[in-house]
Structures are given as C-alpha cells and as structure tokens.
C-alpha cells in the first residue's frame, strides 16, 4: 500500500538495485528475468541481480508505489504463464529523476575537487 502523498525526496538515496530496476523499466515494461538481463547488459556484467534481491526490491517498490504490476500480456507466443510484468509508475519516474539529480550533484562536487574526470 503506497503511503499517502509521498515525496520523491523521502526515498533518497535509493538502493542501487532499486535504481537499476527503475532504469530497466524506464523504456519498456519487463518481466523479472528481463530486468536481470537488462541490468547485467547495461553494467557489462558487473551487477548481476539475484532472484531474491530482485523480488525483494520489487515487493518494496510496489509498496512504495514506484512500479506497478501490469495485467495486459504480450502476444501468447512470447508469453510464459508464470511471468509477471512490471511498469514504472509516474512516481517511480519522479523518484528516478530525483536520484539522478542527486548523483549528478555528487559527481560535480567530486569533479570540483579533481576526483572525477571532466570539466571543473
């Protein structure tokens, strides 16, 4: 159950696994295994979510209202009965943006001290 009138800032900083799941769902709805694959592909295999971590995060993110489970299914030939599909919620998008902003600020602070590549 989502908390009443949540503020995106209240959930920051976001656990890395949650952030990655939001990124994976940003462009399309995916089922669990597809999320794991997408995260692994984007991080070059550096982050391999385990099933437990994935679904524990999913459960929490559902409760927080970051994502929703969708009932519409792809065409039956691509579908597996067991699969459940997830979609990023508008609140999830807002939180992902806020987290990205937070990370950007951090990086620019690091840059100002010469701890990160790029222009000061």
């Amino acid at each position: 159950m989502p908390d009443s009138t949540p503020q995106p800032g209240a959930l920051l900083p976001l656990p890395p696994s949650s952030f990655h799941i939001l990124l994976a769902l940003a462009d399309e709805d995916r089922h669990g295994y597809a999320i794991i694959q997408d995260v692994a592909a984007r991080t070059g295999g550096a982050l391999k979510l385990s099933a437990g971590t994935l679904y524990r995060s999913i459960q929490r993110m559902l409760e927080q209202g970051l994502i929703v489970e969708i009932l519409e299914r792809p065409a039956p030939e691509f579908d597996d009965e067991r699969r459940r599909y997830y979609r990023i919620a508008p609140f999830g998008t807002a939180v992902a943006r806020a987290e990205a902003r937070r990370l950007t600020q951090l990086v620019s602070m690091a840059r100002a001290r010469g701890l990160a590549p790029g222009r000061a």
Partner: protein
Amino acid sequence: MRAYRALLHLYPASFRAEYGEEMCAIFARQRRDAAGPAVATLWAATFFEVLRNAAAVHWDILQQDLRYTARSLGRTPGFALTAIVVTALGVGANTAAFSVTDFVLIRPLPFAEPERLVKLWERLPGYPKMEPSPANYRDWKRMSTAFEAMGAFYGLPVNLVGHGDPERLERTAVTADLFPMLGAHALLGRLFAPADDRAGAAGTLLLSYPLWQAVFGGDAGVVGQRVTLDNEPYTVIGVMPPDFHFPSREAEIWTPARFQELDFQDRDNNYLEVVAKLRRGVSLDRARAEMGVIAGQLERQYPKENRLTGSNVIRLRDELSQQSRLLLVALSGAALCVLLIACANLANLLLARALARQKELAVRAAMGAGRERLVRQLVTENLVLAVLGGLLGVLAAVAAVPLLARLVPSSLPIAQAPSVDFRVLIFAALLTGLTGVGFGVFPALRASGSADLSGLREGARAGGGLREGARAGGGRKERLRSALVIAEVMASVVLLVSAGLLIRALWRIEATDPGFHADGVLTLRTALPMPKYAVTARRAEFYTRVLSEVRALPGVSAAAYISFLPMVMQGGIWPVAIDGQPRDLTRGGESQTASMRFVTPGFFAAMGIPLHRGRDVSDSDTIDRPFAAVVSESFVRRYWPDQDPLSRHFQFAFHDRMVVGVVGNIRVRGLERNSEPQVYLAYKQDPDGGFTFYGPQDLVVRSSASTGALLPALRRIIRGADPQQPVSDVRTMAQIVEEETASRSAQVRVLGVFAAIAFLLAGVGIHGLLSFAVSRRAQEIAVRIALGARSSAIVRMVLRQGVLLAAAGVLPGVALAYAAGRAMQALLAGVQPGDAPTFLAAAGLCVLMTILGCLFPALRAVRVDPITAIRAE
C-alpha cells in the same frame, strides 16, 4: 530444482506465493547456463543469497507489521493499555516471586561443589538437630570415611575496643579446614592454617568485607594490624570477599576455633555446628548410614552421655526451615494463579478484539492478504503487547523485590537481598514469550479463520433472535470466553481463600500471649567480655551499679538483667532430674528438659511476667546460700502436678536447686512453637567460671519514657560503669515480638496484593464478557423493550448470566481452595483449611465482584434505545 524450492521456504509464505514460481524459473535458467564447477559456485552463491534476502524480507514485513501495530493500537489505547497492564501484572508477580524463590530455594549455594556439602547434627528425642559437642565432633571426624573433609564452627560474639566506639561483633570461631572445604579464598591476606588452630598460638582473625570497609576504611594495609577483641590481642591475617557469607550474612569476623583437652571432657556440652563435604561418589544415604553406625558405637562407648544420641546428615542447601520453604512455595503458587488469571483475561480481551476486528480483517483478506499474513500481523501485535507488558512487569518486579527481602531466611549463607539477575530476566522473558505466543497466536488463528467475506456483511449476526444470533456469530467463541472467565473466578477464589487463611493464621499468632507485656520495654545488650568478667562478683558489681542508676531515671519503673531474651535466644535447654522420679529424656512424649536463664532481681516485674507463688530471686541469694530457682507454671505442672512446688528440690545444670517462686509461662521459642518449661536462677549463684556463657547480658527496662529519651541516658550509665563496654542490639521488646511474624506478614501482604489483583482481574473479566454480550444483543434487547419488557426483566437477564458465570467458577474454586489450604496446613498455625468464616468471606467477595461486574452492563442494557438499535440495521 527441488532443493531450490525447499530453500525458498525460508521466505515468508506470502512472498513465496507471490514470487516463488518466477524465482524458480529464473534459477532454472541460471542453472541451465552454468556448467562444470560453475554449478557448485551457483549453488553456494544462491544459498547465501537466499539466506540474506529471506532475512531481509522477514525484516521488511516485521517493520511493516510494527508500523501497522503502532497505528492499530494507537486507535484503541484503552485496549492496549489494559492488555499491557494485565500482562505486566502476571509477569511482574511471577518474576518477583521467582527471584526470591530462586534465590532461596533453587540457586546453588555460593561455595565450591555445594551439592556435596552437608551439615551434621546430633539427633536426640525431640531434637532432630542438636549441636554436637567437641568430643563427638572429634570422634565423628576420626571414625567416618564418607567425608572428604569436616570442619566445625560456633558463634561467639566479641567486643572490639580501640577503633572508635566499643563495638559488639558477630564473631564465628571456625576450624582451619572449614574455609578451604567451602572453596573460599581471602580477598586480602590468607585463610587460617592448621597452626592457627593450636591452643596457645597467637590470636589471628579474618575480617568480613563490610566490617573492613566500615571500621578499617577499606585500608589494604590492614593485614598484619593488631586489634583487641575482648581484651585479647589478635592479628588481622586477611579480609574475605564481599560475597562471602558464612555461616550467615550476619557474620562479621572469624577467629580460629581452638579446642583444649578440657573441651573434649564433657560430651553434653553441645555448641558446635559441623559442616562436611561428601567424598566424591558417596551418596547422602551412605553418609547417613555410616554416621548412624558411628553414633551407635559412640552410644555404646559412652552409654551415659550419649544416651539416645543419634546423628542427622542434611544437605547444606536444605538447612532451611520447613516454614520458610512453604512460605515461598505458597507465594510461587499464588503468583502462578495470578499469571493464569492474567492469561485468561488477556485471551478474553484478544478474542473480543478479534471479533470486533472481523470486518477489518475481512477487508484485508479481500484485498489479497493471505491467512498467513493476517495471522502474522496479529501475532506481531500480540507479541508487541506482551513484550511491552513484560518490560513493565520486570520493572515492577525490580521495584518489588526489596520488599520481599524479609522472606529470605537469615540462616542461609547468602546475601540478604535477592537481585533481579540474568536468570530472573530469562525467566521473565520466557513467561512473556509464553504469554504472548500462547495467548496471542491462539486468538489470532481463531480470528483469521473466520476472516471471510461474511464479516463484511454488516448485519450478519443481527437477523435472528438471541440463540440463532449466538449460533451464527460467535457462539463457540462466547462459550470459550465464558470458560475463560469461569477459570478466572475459580483461580481468584483459590487466591482469596488462601490469603484469607493466612491472614487468619497471622491474626491468631499475633493474638498469642507471649506470657510477658512487651509494651514499654526497651532492651539492649552489654555482653561482658571474658576473662575480664569471669569472676561472678565482678559482674554483679557491674549489674548493681548499672541497674541502680537505671532505676533512678525518670519514668523507669523496673529494670533487670537476664542471660538471653526470650525469642531472641531459643536454646539454652538443660535436662532436669528430680529426686524420687525416674530420669527419662522422654517422659510422656515430652522431653524432660527446661530452658535455663540467670536473672537479676526485678526481671519478672520489668517484663510483666506474673509471679504466682513465692518470691523473686534476690540479692541475698548468694553462692553460699541454697541455690534458688524460680520456675514457670509449666515446670510445676510437669513435675509436681497438684502439689505445692515451693521448697522442692531438683537437679539442674550440675547443681541441686530449690524452688522459691513460680511465675507465668513465657514463649521462649517464639509465638508459633511450644516452649520448654522455664527455670530462672539467681545471678549471684553462678560459681566463678561456671556458666560464663549464661552470664546476664541483656538489659530490660520498663519505662514510660520513649526510646529516644531513654537511650542516651542508658549509654551514659553504661559508659560510666565501664568505658570499654559496647552497647549492642538496642530494640524494644515489641520489636522482638513483631519480628516473630515479620516473614509471615510480608508473605501475607504479598499474597493479599496477589489476591486483590486476581479479584480485580476476574471482576474485569466478568464485566468485559457481559458488556460484550450486551452490545451483541443490543438489537434483541431493543426488540424486547419495544415489545414491552420491563427493565427489571432485562436486568435479571444480564444478572442471570453473570451469576451463572460466578457460580460455575466459585464451586470448583472452593474445592481447589480447600486442597490448597490442606497443602499449606503447616503454615496455618491451627486455622483449619476449611475455615468457614474465610470461605464465607471469599464467597461473599465473589458475589460482590459479580454484582459489580454485572452492574454497568445491566445498566447499559436497560438504557438501550429501541429505535436507535433497530434502526442501526
């Protein structure tokens, strides 16, 4: 794959149901992709991943449930508070009772291998535990093989002079083998060595920790210092640790027990206490058998002195009066009763709450919460209540334990105050857990079992009449709740009757005539040190001077000295022989003995003991005159019934004595025990060095002045007579008599509180159940009122239910209470376990409780507004 599924059971069922299939699918793919050694790596990683995540999911749910609990309890603070307080009462009562019981009865004594330590006694007809004489002790030690070590001690208070005011100290003389046998170590310095025991060795002593702190300021350089005890020089050889108490917590100082050949001459000189350690592998029974054989041999060897003298071997742990034990067992039983009542009340509260929450649970079930989730939520709620109640209970117990210290017998070698320690906390946690799980899970299961959609139908229960409604709705639950209330009433009857019986016993004991008038009598002790006062005339000089000055004080009507005050010293028993009567230790089932005291003139007047015939001892009863004795009525009744006792002679304490007076009986052995007849001897008729132990030391002053006004004058007078003489044990006689019943009244007070709690809880239980029933039946009642039922009929209907509940509880309660009374008959001081006034009072209280419990529900039933109640449909 099956292994992975099994592993998934570590997750909560709700999580597994939701995601288990997909997790299996993902694992299946990973498993397919892996080959060779990667399979092992995958399994290992998966195993730890599941462990970690399952714990995390459980934690997530717990947090969620706790948040929900806080909200839901916050909405019903009255319920939450009641449940917490009820739990706290149950846990608190038991924690407090357990802390004392554990401390006194269960916990091993603070010595090395305490289970092998035993105490050895002589056994005489009528005296199962008689102190052995040094001669018998020496023979036991020489002849026995069952013991690894044997040591002896005796109490011999001494005066300490030269460190501030003169002080009277509780000194225990111990043989050198005693402390090592107990596994004791000195905090500073050393223990006694066999060389310290030899007659003629330089005096050595060990200090107790409190005395070291109080008198020597905790100075580490105290070892080697010289101190003067009873005018004799001693060297401090060590300090004992703070937790060492032997033989009791009163011990302040220890010196070696030294025996000279002379001490072994008299086998009737019984004053030693003997502790021994069973050899490894030797049972108590074997030790008893061996000691029996040895006692038999000694009796044959010394047929006169050791006549009928057996032996008695008792575990040191069991050196506790039957009464102290029973007091605590009764207390624990009462606490258990309180816990049962609290649990029944709690279960009732939770059942009622679960019924009231049916709709909420049905909504949650409809929204997809599984039964497991609902039960888990409810259990979390109940556990939170239990833990809060448990914490409060432990706090209450911590506060109450010091009040229970009076129940710790002073005869045990343990500290006075039990502490709430680790064991007690574990006990409290177990209790809390049991209460929470037992009475939280059960209602939760029941509640969730019916959390179906029927709960959503608003008027489901209201359609039919009373019977149908009860059957359709919570008929079974109502029966269960009734059973719980009946159990509460039953347990509270048991508690009320037990407390009542013990109160009656206490009253009876308090009403016992001690044989003297305690009011207005102040007592104090000036124990005259030997050998300074070994000459009788020297003591007489002291008494004469002190007494004449005390008697001259304003308000003082009488003053005298006696060897030992009654009740404070219960021993000092000597055999009696009468010319022309056969000497037998047991005549008519009673031993032929009497208690012996030396007194100065005026003792009977000072104590208010009536002089029935003849005269008091007098100053002219000197050593060259016939030895005078004043005897008690019981003495006369036993030896010269229906005859004039005056001027008759008897043999007592090595001398021929002549009866010069007869006084009333007093209770030397306290209010609850039968006392031997009393013999009072003239203080001047004690040959020099004869009965120095019996030299009068307790001053009794009858006065109209207050203690505060009198005491400084008394101290000044004693300082004037001997500046080195300490004054100790300042007490009124009334305090001494009160001390007799101190542990009893402490127990009765605690039990009374328990009974009051039980009574209250049972009343609340009846009230709760009836209120609930009335609100469930509001529509039925409304219909009845609308149809013209009188209010009296409605009240009768509610009352009937209450009275039925009470009667169903009182009847078995009375039977149980009688059984409880029988079990603690030894504590009842002659009050019958079926004491009618007590039972009537308890039953009357139950009727009162029932009426009070019914009152508000009945009023509410009468006030039901038919229109509102029916329209609510």
